[in-house]
């Protein structure tokens, strides 16, 4: 074996090792209760502290934005399914438009955890919400406005919340669209177990 071959082999081995380390650094995180990885499944429920959807010039807010998320770990990676998301008492920031109906469509929506250094995020995929606005002066009166896409939220282990906002969408390269354009969805959701791990601290790592 000459010196050149040795060098190339060593270089290749170093590349493989560094790639493996890079992989583990970005490895998908898991759901944990009291610091121990979740076994089996659990149901997380809650209501958004605050939530709004903004299409430039029209912001829609819901007083009651509830959700039910079934979570589990698969091969060490946190996964989930958003199974329920009832929305009540929704209004807009305009005098012209009211919310006639608003509902999540095609549930369940798959969810997964991901790490984008230095933070953990939850990605909700295949999201679909149908909104019908009313109001004789409202430009979209009677028109079904569909919000579709993927939403990425920042997990805060200390506060036990998932926060969805412009920054979390940018970090996760996710996007929700309505009327063919990108929209901003803001919301802070508590992550609290309601089945086997009630009162236990839920963290993601």
């Amino acid at each position: 074996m000459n010196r050149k071959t040795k060098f190339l082999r060593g270089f290749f081995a170093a590349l493989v090792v560094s790639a493996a380390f890079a992989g583990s650094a970005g490895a998908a995180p898991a759901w944990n209760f009291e610091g121990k990885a979740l076994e089996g499944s659990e149901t997380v429920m809650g209501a958004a502290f605050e939530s709004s959807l903004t299409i430039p010039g029209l912001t829609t807010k819901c007083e009651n934005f509830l959700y039910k998320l079934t979570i589990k770990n698969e091969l060490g990676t946190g996964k989930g399914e958003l199974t329920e998301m009832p929305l009540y008492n929704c209004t807009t920031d305009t005098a012209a438009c009211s919310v006639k109906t608003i509902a999540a469509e095609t549930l369940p929506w798959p969810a997964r955890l991901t790490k984008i250094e230095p933070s953990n995020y939850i990605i909700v995929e295949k999201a679909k919400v149908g909104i019908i606005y009313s109001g004789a002066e409202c430009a979209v009166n009677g028109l079904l406005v569909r919000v579709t896409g993927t939403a990425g939220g920042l997990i805060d282990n200390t506060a036990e919340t998932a926060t969805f906002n412009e920054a979390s969408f940018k970090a996760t390269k996710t996007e929700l669209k309505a009327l063919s354009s990108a929209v901003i969805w803001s919301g802070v959701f508590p992550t609290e177990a309601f089945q086997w791990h009630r009162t236990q601290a839920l963290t993601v790592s």
Partner: protein
Amino acid sequence: MRMNRNATRVVCTAMMAVALTALGLAGSASAALTGEFKKFEQCPYKTATVERCMYTLTTGGEVILGTKKVTLEKPVTIQGGYTEPNEAEGGYAKFFAAKDGNTISKAAQNVPGGLAGIVPDASSPFLVKALIKFFFENSLTGVSSTLELAKTASDIRINETHLAEGLGVVMKLPVKLHLENPFLGKSCFVGSSTSPITWEVRPDTTSPPKPNEPITGNPGEVQFLEGARILKLSNVELVDNAWSAPAASGCGGIISFLVNPIINAQIGLPSAAGKNTTRLKNTIYTTTAFALNKNYETEK
């Protein structure tokens, strides 16, 4: 004499007062819409069955008709009112003409190559050659193409759901292209009321017959104006490349029997579906007739 002078004065004063009142009324009626609503001044929003209004400004794009490509360099507006969606017609709404009749504004677009590009001197009959020579020598060689409605505005169809979702045919538009040049005369058209060119423009992907390939438009970006009373869609690209065009008619005036075949041969008319393309770059505004009426009542 004095009485006559007084009577004249009284009549003059009364006439002036009537004229001023009339002007005043006319002024308040036409200037009633304010802000962004002004765009919809030509929408027949007081017509009972008009539920919504549309103002579309086309600022670019192209029309490929057979072998000729015309770039849209001058803006074109398409405006009017429309009804609630008609479910029996697949959700398409019936259109109403603009109040001033300019449902499609007439903007003459330059045809590249001008007269030389559509009437070749070499292969033309003697009479045509002589006329072309006359027009060329007079530098009247430029040819323009103007988009006009081929049928009434009520034959236009709008689908607001498709516009909102960025999927499907948004507008069905029966049009004709008016080719203008002193040599071609005033009645040189491709398309007519009995044989219109029908554009079915959409912001998504077309599925045309060959030889055309599918092309994709752009649903644009949304913005609400005037407290969500106006929906504005910018950078909307509406496309259709599945339309057909009939032969030209009325070109060359009294020698149209000679000129029509030359134009048809040069442009490739009639042009079958799959050989023509429309690409319109637009900003689209829509609102409700109720919002316009309220703005009018508030501001007058």
